[in-house]
């Protein structure tokens, strides 16, 4: 019968939704591959952190309150208190102009 | 810590629930003031249409409360990493005096919404809408609960400081605490299990009794409804205690780790989800019995009420058995395979 071969709209939705979920699963799988790569050095990094007494990861080396909590000043025009949050918007959006000499 | 993503999600869920119940309350006030089934004017017709709205809104609020309950537990779990001394969700929830009440209010709201939906179903099945006024009064009691919930959650989150030292669950539930603070305290295992077993026995016996009665074409009486109405909430409370004190150490395989929330973590196989789902399902089905008994006294409501009862009694039993099986699995396996600890 001809009319039976035509899928219902909800079937289409199922197919599309399933396809999208499948894509997500693939992406999550890829993410886990990356995660595995990231965590491959993890043991080593922990050992280094312990050996050198690092207090932070070096994602913002110029921000002393991030890289090393240890050099904060309590009395400063901009708050650098160790338990204070960095002054968020300005501190992170404007980089200094580095002139190439 | 109002700026945390978890906090924002919780507050968002709370605000949206409040919006839903607020609109429903507006309807409720209108219905309570103007409901007149005899009238065929436009206002009455609109009020009848509004019954669709209020049930949709309360359903939405119920679902949202369930979601926000899960988020609340997740948030507490997450905050445990931010609060010194809090090693699991229990510690984070007891970090200030608003956490546990907020959780309790959430659970009570959940049960109230479930009760409301049962009453709503009975009401809508009868052309005379016998319970309409009653159920809209109930919406008006749901409103303060939701407000209270939002207030407590806000207070809890606002007063949560990442630096303060709080106790962790190991301290809270330990049998002897140096600080003297204990949430559940010194509960001897055997008497507790005895009480619990007796209560479960009573509930099962009651269910069989009601089932036989219904099979003989009789209706459930006030005494049974009273026992069920008392027994099931008690069962809920005792179950939480038993899960915390007796079941959870077996799951964690650590005698002093007693936390009702860590069960929900992936590292324990998400055993908490089927466990708590079956527990809540069983208790909701259980408290349906007194609710339907109460509703059945309204003219015309008896038929639907009894139809719901005929399903609620075996449903509660089935879920109870599922719950007990899941709860007993780990301790039994441990005692059979691994000996006593």
């Amino acid at each position, binding site marked *: 019968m001809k*009319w*039976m071969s035509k899928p*219902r709209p909800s079937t289409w939705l199922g197919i599309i939704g399933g396809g999208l979920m499948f894509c997500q699963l693939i992406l999550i799988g890829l993410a886990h591959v990356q995660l595995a790569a990231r965590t491959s050095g993890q043991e080593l990094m922990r050992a280094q952190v312990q050996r050198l007494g690092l207090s932070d990861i070096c994602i913002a080396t110029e921000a002393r309150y991030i890289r090393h909590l240890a050099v904060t000043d309590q009395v400063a025009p901009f708050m650098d208190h160790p338990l204070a949050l960095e002054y968020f918007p300005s501190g992170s959006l404007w980089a200094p102009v580095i002139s190439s000499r | 810590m109002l700026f945390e993503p978890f906090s924002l999600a919780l507050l968002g869920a709370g605000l949206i629930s409040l919006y839903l119940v607020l609109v429903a309350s507006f309807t409720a006030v209108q219905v309570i003031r103007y409901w007149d*089934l*005899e009238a*065929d*004017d*436009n206002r009455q*017709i609109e009020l*009848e*249409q509004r*019954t669709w709205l209020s049930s949709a809104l309360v359903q939405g609020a119920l679902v949202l409360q369930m979601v926000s309950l899960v988020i609340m537990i997740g948030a507490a779990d997450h905050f445990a990493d931010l609060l010194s001394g809090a090693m699991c969700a229990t510690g984070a929830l007891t970090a200030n005096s608003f956490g546990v009440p907020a959780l309790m209010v959430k659970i009570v709201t959940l049960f109230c919404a479930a009760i409301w939906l049962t009453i709503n179903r009975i009401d*809508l099945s009868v*052309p005379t*809408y016998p319970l309409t006024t009653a159920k809209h009064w109930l919406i008006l009691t749901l409103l303060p609960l939701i407000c209270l919930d939002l207030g407590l959650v806000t207070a809890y989150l606002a007063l949560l400081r990442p630096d303060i030292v709080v106790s962790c669950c190991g301290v809270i539930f330990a049998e002897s605490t140096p600080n003297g603070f204990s949430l559940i305290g010194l509960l001897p295992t055997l008497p507790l299990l005895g009480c619990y077993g007796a209560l479960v026995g009573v509930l099962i016996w009651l269910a069989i009794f009601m089932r036989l009665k219904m099979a003989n074409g009789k209706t459930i009486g006030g005494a049974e409804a009273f026992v069920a109405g008392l027994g099931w909430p008690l069962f809920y409370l005792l179950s939480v205690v038993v899960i915390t004190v007796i079941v959870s150490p077996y799951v964690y395989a650590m005698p002093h780790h007693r936390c009702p929330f860590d069960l929900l973590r992936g590292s324990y196989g998400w055993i908490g989800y089927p466990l708590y789902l079956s527990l809540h399902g069983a208790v909701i089905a259980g408290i349906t019995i007194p609710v339907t008994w109460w509703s059945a006294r309204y003219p015309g409501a008896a038929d639907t009420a009894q139809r719901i009862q005929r399903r609620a009694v075996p449903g509660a039993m089935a879920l109870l058995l599922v719950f007990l099986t899941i709860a007993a699995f780990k301790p039994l396996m441990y005692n059979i395979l691994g000996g006593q600890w």
Partner: protein
Amino acid sequence: MIIRLHEVHKFYNRDTPRQVHAVRGVSLAVQEGEAVCISGPSGSGKSTLLGIIGGFFVPTSGLAEVAGVKLARLPDRFLTSYRRDYIGFIPQRFPVIGAMSVLANVILPLLPLGVEQRESEERGRQLLTRLNITHKQNMPAAELSGGELQRLVIARALINDPPIILADEPTAHLDSALSTQFISIMSECRAEGKTVVIASHDPLVFQSSLIDRHLILEDGAMVAG
């Protein structure tokens, strides 16, 4: 007695300055399998009477009982269930959802009843075959001609096999050939034992052999029949 109305009154906007007394004390009894035509000038309360029988609204006072259901004071939710079970309604202008296919339009009443799609399409196709428009079943309803539209609407009214068919001015927008076709389809339905109530002031309808009884409403009150 499938339809029984006794001293039915209907007010619109009651107790307001815009109050309308649309139906004034109408009593009516229709046997199962009877075909009745209600006529009268426009504004005489035909549509209101039809609306009361069809469960679109309840009478302000009086007794209305159709197929054993007491319609007075029934809330909208239950009127709707009543309509699902007992009424096939043919409205005046043949409203359809133009973008949907003919078949999809015909099975619309079955969707919320939880009838499986295959079964409802089978029923729809049978009806379309009976009404001779099977060849148009997959065409968007908007592309149908007046006569085909009429048959679609009739098929839709019959899809749930209702014991009562109500038609509101069905021939008002049709030429005489199509009106005759309508009458012959209704005659078939009557022959199957369905009760037919038509509100129409078209002589072609009330003078036809289909109609067993011709009632005349004037200013909301029954004057003949």
